């Protein structure tokens, strides 16, 4: 399959819808170890990204969709999730540069660039109890699936499963980054809200590709 600008726009619609539906749960998770606004920031950011990319015309390339999403997400949100997701989309835009449409392998390369962008901007390592604990295994699983000759939807399904496992594993971790770091051992037992929302985002991307 080939993923073009129309497909990517639909993907942002799907992500925004999924995050909006998940907003209250994400705020509750954040309330346990942070300041209870993660769902609000994510919903605001993806709604802004959805609306901004919807305004792109038919001559736009996938890289324009990602770059537009990055800028609109960032300026709607600020916070921590703003720079992290904006950097993710900018890296995806760079990976997609010059292509009118993305092959399955191109799409997974852009997906992996997103994870790397989040890691570079936030400087979190695996085990720090952040969204990286969902994004890195997801990127690895998607890459492996493509190497095995699977399609992009299948690769993203594998990524969703890996992200979900990664998010679940954050329960046992002690937070060392961001506001929850101040909790130390008291963060144990709670899922990291950034990892939880990453699963929702990746799952929505997978479903959108499968449609």
């Amino acid at each position, binding site marked *: 399959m080939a993923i073009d600008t129309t497909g990517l726009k639909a993907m942002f619609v799907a992500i925004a819808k999924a995050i909006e539906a998940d907003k209250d749960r994400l705020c509750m998770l954040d309330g346990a170890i942070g300041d209870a*606004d993660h769902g609000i920031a994510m919903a605001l950011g993806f709604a802004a990204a959805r609306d901004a990319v919807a305004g792109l015309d038919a001559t736009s390339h996938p890289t324009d969709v990602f770059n537009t999403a990055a800028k609109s997400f960032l300026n709607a949100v600020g*916070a921590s999730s*703003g720079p992290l997701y904006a950097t993710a989309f900018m890296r995806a835009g760079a990976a997609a540069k010059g292509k009118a449409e993305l092959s399955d392998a191109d799409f997974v390369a852009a997906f992996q660039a997103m994870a790397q962008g989040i890691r570079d901007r936030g400087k979190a390592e695996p085990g720090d109890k952040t969204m990286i604990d969902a994004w890195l295994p997801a990127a690895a699983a998607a890459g492996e699936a493509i190497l095995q000759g699977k399609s992009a939807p299948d690769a993203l399904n594998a990524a969703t499963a890996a992200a979900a496992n990664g998010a679940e594993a954050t329960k046992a971790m002690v937070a060392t980054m*961001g506001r929850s770091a*101040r909790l130390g051992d*008291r963060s144990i037992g709670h899922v990291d809200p950034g990892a939880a929302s990453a699963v929702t985002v990746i799952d929505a991307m997978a479903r959108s590709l499968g449609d």
Partner: protein
Amino acid sequence: MKTKKLINDGARAVEEMLVGILAAHGRHLHAVEGSPRSIVARSGPRPGKVGLVIGGGSGHEPSFLGFVGKGLADACAVGNVFASPPPDPIVGAAKAASGGAGVLFMYGNYAGDVMNFDMAAELLALDDVEVRTVLSTDDIASAPFDQKQKRRGVAGNFFIFKAAGAACDKMLSFDECERIARKANDHTYTVGVALAPCSLPQTLRPNFEIGADEMEIGMGIHGEPGVQRGPLRPADEVVDDMLDRILAEMNPSCGDRVAVLVNSLGSTSLMELYIVNRRIAVRLADIGVGAHATWVGNYCTSLEMAGASITLHRLDGELQAMLDHPCDCAMFRAG
């Protein structure tokens, strides 16, 4: 159960507040054309002066934009409730504040603020605006002394920004302004106590749970958990607990001078704050430390959170001169 707030629309709360602030304080403040979240002092920025840009999330009023004015901050970037502003309004504020002698970024040490302000600094470097950053880390309950760089910035910003703003207003060099800003941060010690949560306008739900008879010492200004939760005790005992933590680290000698800030987290009354200050005055007198100046009231709030913070700012001749330097801001005047 939803909390009660006098708002129209939670999603528009920051915008509507800003309109009200500019209507009330138009003599001091204006927004950058095309960048409504970049708030600039009408009098302040000028050629050859180091520009001071502060900022952070909304919900802490009068922090941060209330401290924009001649003699203090030149401009402020305003974020969503409890969320760092994105890079664009920070860039807008910095360009308005820049007098060609460099721009100092000062804000509390939070991961989101650091990422957004750093991205703004990268963008400004492309336009040849030199930016240096001094993070405030005055909340001594937020990390141990040996991890001071991890501490968050809270109400002590008041003294830290004041010192830096005075240095900038005196037309000192970029190096000197930065040095004084760092020194002011090193001389500022805050501990807070929370009694009841706040709620965000978008959720109208308490942002943490605490028992009806409980308090939490060291809680952050966004409800980040503190160092000790227990039954609420009489004010004097709570103040003693907080001051003991501050004095243990500040280690003052008889004859030292400090400035005192007793700050409400939002809904704690002036009556309670003055009861707190009564005990602080007794304790300082007991150890022979002089209170050069004291401020009591709302300086760095957490919406309607109940509780207070105590900040001591240890003075020497230089920091006292910075503190006594006049300033005329939208929500604060001195000298």
